């Protein structure tokens, strides 16, 4: 299967970012790495989509950020899920599952 390097829909990107942040705070680079890791290296989020996506989610109040020191002793901006972000992740996951099930049903129809 070819890697989905581009063409990820905005809603899907939002959900992936929220999912990547579910276990705990991460900086932007870490979020990209986490998404690659949890998708088995099938999804690579372009930086040109990732960072505007993070700023949009912060604006909506689903994530919040603060500057801290990273593992390699550099200042980095860490993002974490807010309470409304956690709720939104559940909604996005349910919507996605419904859509995927419906699409599979349609594809398997004779």
């Amino acid at each position, binding site marked *: 299967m070819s890697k989905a390097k581009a063409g990820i829909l905005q809603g899907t990107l939002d959900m992936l970012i929220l999912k990547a942040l579910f276990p705990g705070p991460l900086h932007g680079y870490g979020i990209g790495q986490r998404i690659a890791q949890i998708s088995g290296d099938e999804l690579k989020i372009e930086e040109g989509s990732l960072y*505007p996506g993070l700023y949009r989610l912060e604006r909506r109040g689903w994530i919040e950020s603060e500057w801290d020191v990273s593992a390699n002793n550099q200042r980095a901006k860490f993002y974490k899920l807010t309470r409304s972000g956690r709720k939104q992740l559940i909604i996005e996951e349910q919507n996605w599952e419904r859509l995927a099930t419906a699409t599979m049903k349609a594809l398997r129809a004779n």
Partner: protein
Amino acid sequence: MSRVKDTVNFIHAWQHPEEIADEVDAELRFHVQMRTNANIEKGMAPHEAQLAARESFGDFDQIKASCCEIKRGFPFDSKRVRMGFYIAIACLAGGVALVAVNLPHHNLFGILWQLVAIAVLMRAFLIGRRKQ
């Protein structure tokens, strides 16, 4: 995030665009640095690793501009809230103009008040204009 906090952040971002640009710049540079470190760990020479990191990042300035734009953008998605904001600005501008016109113009106090009113009106105009 509460609407009050949104509004405060919006005004702060609008008043200090250079702070927002510096913050975004530092964040994106950190990303490029991390990618460079990862490339070096994979066995690339430092210079080559940095070049590859910058290339894979894409158009740094464009990404930075997009992030700054979102950060400085209008904080409310709802049309009703947006309309309320415009009405509040219009009421403020109208009230200030009314006060400025009706103040006595023959003493220093009156002139100072008029200058304050002009400054408030200009600011309201700039905030309203920025939304376009």
